[in-house]
């Protein structure tokens, strides 16, 4: 199988490698051991600021005011009476129990605990004699009917409905803030431990008539972490699956072991290099090592297959290994370079985590070029093949009937059907493209599935209360030195803004200083609702603002020259956010003036909006530069626009279809899914490069026609390509069962890309070649029939 016409440089490189192969293997082994040790020090670290587009306009607002309006790390434990209202003895006993349990959780800021039973929950009213007020539930509460009735009265008078008591009076919640560090130990709060203990509270309080819903940042993190534990299991399953398939394919324990070993090296090297370079692995990038492993398997299988074919041709193992290296060095390096490009272009997304992912993956593929070239061929050269093994390699002597039938696609007649199908699929892809969304399309925490318990709890809480977990904050800056917020004209304009925001679709409620001041004004006027207005004079506004200071800095900063208007959204779907953000921009364009400046955006939805916009802005650049660079790569390698088109067009179609699949499955384009396209193109091009490298050789050097050249390429590279595509598809497809939605989404899309790219290379590439590529003058004409007579079935499947 040695290609005597290959450039001398390749032979020279292979010669150097093989002259020093033992030393090389020893050096590599030492390096691997060292990097393996270093890999034990790799830290998996999540950083909030790594996940946000810091350069984005919204995030500068967020950073400017992060210390003024810090989003508290709250937990909310809501209890719903499934058989009545909250003003029932048994229900209140459960609420009391939950309040006490939350109060004694480690890391809870005790003074922040808020429920009907805590002393900070009071009501006040104007009575005939002046002001009166008190706790909603008094200290002598014993569950007597008149006490229950009094609690109801006070609750209705208070402003706690919608906040800690649901609008339908069926639920009440315990709210508490978590501290950053445990005051006893001084260590960071163990969020997962908190999440576990909250689950314990749920199990202790829940009964036939009391349903418990728990939400909050720490609970979400805990549930995600629990899901992430499963990632390791999926790795193990995938590796096992690959091992079984490899053995089935190679019929050799030794080859299976060598392939797995070689594919593991770049992963070990990568994980060892990261700590040496002072880098960590982000939980959202935790899938990268596995992807590196999968790509490495793909290239190792090609190498082993080429080696096997040479052995079957009657050469010794050293010759076969060296010939495999010479034949595959260029296509594998070019294919890996395409992988690198695929990873690099996603760095266009201006989010540090994505940049880190790009760098991490690029490093992984970079070291893979070394390990695949320097380790596997020398190892293969030391692999002994006895007669028994040779028989297994030869298989049962079957002919390549499937590849032969498939090669008809490389004729003008056979190409018609695939090309018509491709045109149809292109039309379908373009049609679906309009429904592809940027950002999240589901409710709840996007990392978890919509039917996850946490997301069900989010839905339950947001449907019952006026508060939600999806908050977009607009910071309104007021000009002036001395508490400018108390000016009636400032309040009046803010009041218009609140009214405007309430009208927007997807807005559940709005909370800001104007609404609060109106409530205070009404309370001062014997709760007559006709006084629920912004007072006309500064002193009365100041009175309301003074009350707001008791809530801490949730509504305005200390100087009262910046006010946070919080918009609670019914969900954080991309289209909901888009519509609201665009509407706020419209308001801003009209109402920004010397008095007030409206700045987007803070809150978790502010971060999502910025991220969506960053992804949206980067997406065209990612796609354009990706295809531009892989096209250049193909042109450089094949020096033919026609061949490059044969490789690139199927890739482009598959990319288009991947977008269509995302649209069909309701998967949004976001930080987690954007790399999939890039990665899919980067790895999908492997098949085309490997096949066409062989086709070109057969066309130019052996003078075969297109069909024969394609058939020859299929015989030598097709089986390995098909095997690796199926292996990689199956292993990433298992991610579908992950508890983590982003892993499941990536699994589905990667499986689609891996598999359909293979179809593109096997079905559309030859069809395009039939029309675009012309046969060149033959050097050593041979007939396909002769080759068939010598052919062996190497893959028994």
């Amino acid at each position, binding site marked *: 199988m040695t290609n005597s016409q290959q450039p001398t440089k390749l032979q020279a490189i292979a010669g150097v490698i093989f002259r020093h192969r033992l030393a090389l293997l020893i050096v590599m082994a030492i390096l691997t051991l060292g990097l393996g040790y270093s890999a034990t020090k790799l830290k998996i670290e999540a950083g909030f600021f790594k996940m946000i587009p810091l350069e984005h306009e919204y995030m500068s607002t967020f950073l400017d005011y992060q210390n003024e309006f810090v989003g508290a790390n709250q937990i909310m434990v809501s209890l719903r009476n499934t058989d009545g209202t909250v003003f029932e003895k048994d229900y209140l006993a459960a609420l009391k129990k939950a309040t006490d349990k939350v109060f004694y959780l480690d890391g809870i800021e005790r003074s922040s605990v808020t429920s009907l039973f805590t002393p900070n929950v009071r009501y006040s009213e104007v009575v005939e004699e002046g002001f009166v007020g008190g706790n909603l539930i008094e200290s002598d509460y014993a569950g007597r009917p008149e006490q229950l009735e009094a609690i109801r009265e006070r609750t209705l008078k208070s402003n706690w409905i919608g906040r800690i008591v649901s609008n339908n009076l069926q639920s009440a919640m315990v709210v508490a803030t978590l501290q950053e560090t445990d005051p006893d130990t001084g260590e960071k709060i163990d969020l997962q431990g908190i999440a576990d203990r909250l689950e314990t509270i749920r199990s202790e309080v829940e009964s036939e008539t009391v349903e418990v819903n728990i939400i909050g940042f720490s609970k979400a993190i805990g549930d995600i972490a629990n899901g992430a534990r499963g990632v390791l299991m999926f790795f193990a399953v995938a590796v096992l699956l690959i091992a079984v398939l490899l053995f089935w394919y190679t019929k050799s324990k030794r080859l299976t072991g060598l392939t797995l070993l070689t594919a593991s090296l770049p992963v070990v090297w990568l994980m060892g290099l990261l700590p040496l370079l002072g880098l960590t692995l982000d939980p959202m990038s935790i899938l990268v090592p596995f992807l590196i492993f999968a790509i490495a398997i793909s290239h190792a299988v090609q190498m082993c297959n080429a080696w096997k074919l040479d052995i079957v041709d009657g050469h010794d193992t050293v010759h076969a290994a060296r010939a495999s290296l010479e034949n595959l060095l260029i296509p594998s390096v070019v294919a890996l370079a395409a992988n690198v490009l695929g990873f690099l272009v996603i760095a266009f997304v201006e989010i540090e985590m994505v940049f880190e992912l790009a760098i991490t993956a690029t490093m992984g593929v970079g070291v893979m070029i070394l390990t695949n070239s320097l380790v596997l061929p020398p190892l293969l050269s030391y692999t002994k093949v006895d007669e028994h093994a040779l028989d297994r390699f030869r298989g049962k002597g079957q002919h390549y009937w499937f590849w032969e039938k498939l090669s008809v696609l490389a004729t003008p007649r056979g190409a018609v059907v695939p090309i018509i199908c491709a045109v149809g699929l292109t039309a379908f892809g373009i049609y679906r493209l309009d429904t592809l969304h940027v950002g999240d399309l589901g409710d709840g925490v996007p990392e978890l599935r919509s039917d996850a318990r946490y997301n069900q709890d989010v839905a339950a809480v947001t449907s019952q209360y006026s508060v939600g977990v999806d908050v977009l904050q607009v910071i309104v800056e007021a000009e002036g030195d001395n508490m400018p917020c108390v000016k009636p004209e400032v309040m009046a304009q803010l009041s218009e803004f609140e009214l405007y925001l309430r009208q927007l679709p997807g807005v559940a409620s709005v909370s800001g200083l104007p609404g609060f001041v109106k409530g205070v004004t009404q309370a001062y006027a014997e709760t007559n609702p*006709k006084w629920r207005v912004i007072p006309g004079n500064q002193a009365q506004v100041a009175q309301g603002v003074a009350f707001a200071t008791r809530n801490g800095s949730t509504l305005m900063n200390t100087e009262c020259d910046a006010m946070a208007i919080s918009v609670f959204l019914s969900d954080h779907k991309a*289209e909901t956010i*888009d519509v609201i953000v665009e509407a706020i921009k419209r308001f801003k364009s*009209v109402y920004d003036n010397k008095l007030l400046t409206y700045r987007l955006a803070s809150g978790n939805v502010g971060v999502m909006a910025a991220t969506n916009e960053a992804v949206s802005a980067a997406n065209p650049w990612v796609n354009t530069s990706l295809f531009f660079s892989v096209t250049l790569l193909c042109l450089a390698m094949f020096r033919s626009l026609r061949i490059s088109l044969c490789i690139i067009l199927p890739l482009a179609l598959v990319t288009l279809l991947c977008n269509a699949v995302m649209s069909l499955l309701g998967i949004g384009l976001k930080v987690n899914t954007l790399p999939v396209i890039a990665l899919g193109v980067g790895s999908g091009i492997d098949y085309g490069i490997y096949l066409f490298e062989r086709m070109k050789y057969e066309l130019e050097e052996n003078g075969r026609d297109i069909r024969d050249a394609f058939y020859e390429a299929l015989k030598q590279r097709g089986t390995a390509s098909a095997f690796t595509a199926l292996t990689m598809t199956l292993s990433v497809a298992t991610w579908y069962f992950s508890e983590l939605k982003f892993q499941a989404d990536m699994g589905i899309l990667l499986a689609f890309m891996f598999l359909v790219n293979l179809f593109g290379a096997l079905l559309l590439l030859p069809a395009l070649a039939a029309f675009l590529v012309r046969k060149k003058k033959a050097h050593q004409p041979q007939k396909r029939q002769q080759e068939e007579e010598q052919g062996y079935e190497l893959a028994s499947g």
Partner: protein
Amino acid sequence: MKPFAKRGLYAAVLCVVPVICASAQLDYHIAPEKLTTFDVVADNKTLYAVGERGVVLTRTKAEGSDWKTHRLPTTKSLTSMAVSDRSRVIVGYGGAILRSDASSDSWTLIDAEELTYGDPLMEVVHLGNDRFLSVGAFGLAILSDDGGRTWNKLTLSEEYFDRHLYSIMQAGNAWILIGESGSLFKTDDLGQSWTQMESPYAGSFFGGLQTQGGAWLLYGMRGQVWRSENQGDSWTQSQTGIELAINAHGIASNGDVYLLGNSGEFLASSDDGKTFRRQTRAPQHGDITSVSRINGKWLISGTRGVGLAELGRGEQQ
């Protein structure tokens, strides 16, 4: 999402929330359930709800039609509206008075600054012919005899009086002003002369009514309801069992009296206001500000908007 798709989506949503960029302000549709509304009235064809930020919502009496948004030439909150055959008058904060002919959609902001000094007007009623009466904060009471075009300030008492007046109640030929600290003023000559009445209660009344049986009822803060069978000479307190403010009333076709208040509290009496029973709350409107019976249904305004609802007894909590 591709730019074209995004633009298409925005265009679609903007059909739902028409946002028309004007040179100085945005004009946008306001949903009836998302506006703080202070009063509801109806004329022959149209339902009106007046509310915050100078907004009036209208819809025809025919079922199923949508509420239309009207921004009047003021941004003050509008508290009350009265209609006659020839005129419509709306009053509000900042002493805002707006009028229009009944046949016109054009509203005029009346300059009454020298009468109101910018104090809020809380209620306006039509007394008959072209006469309208309005009351407000700090004892403000003004009268118009020309359909709201010009106004005169009324002197209710020889003594200094600065209590807020919240409501105007009709009792036969008499009209009674109701307000803060139990304030009650009565006129039998359509506002020409006024008599201060003895009040049974030191707290504030927010409204009142004459029942079909002829009894007078006053209601207000902390669930207070007082009843008189002798035109205010003596009063007895009706027990309500609630301590929330009562702000609005309605009389059912069978004579039942409905009182509605904060947090959607709903009381009903079937014995001419002697006793009241608590009914299922109507929390969707927030603190209820006004009720009007329309074709057997009830048009309710409140701090969480306006809407038609069924009210009825027999759903006691």
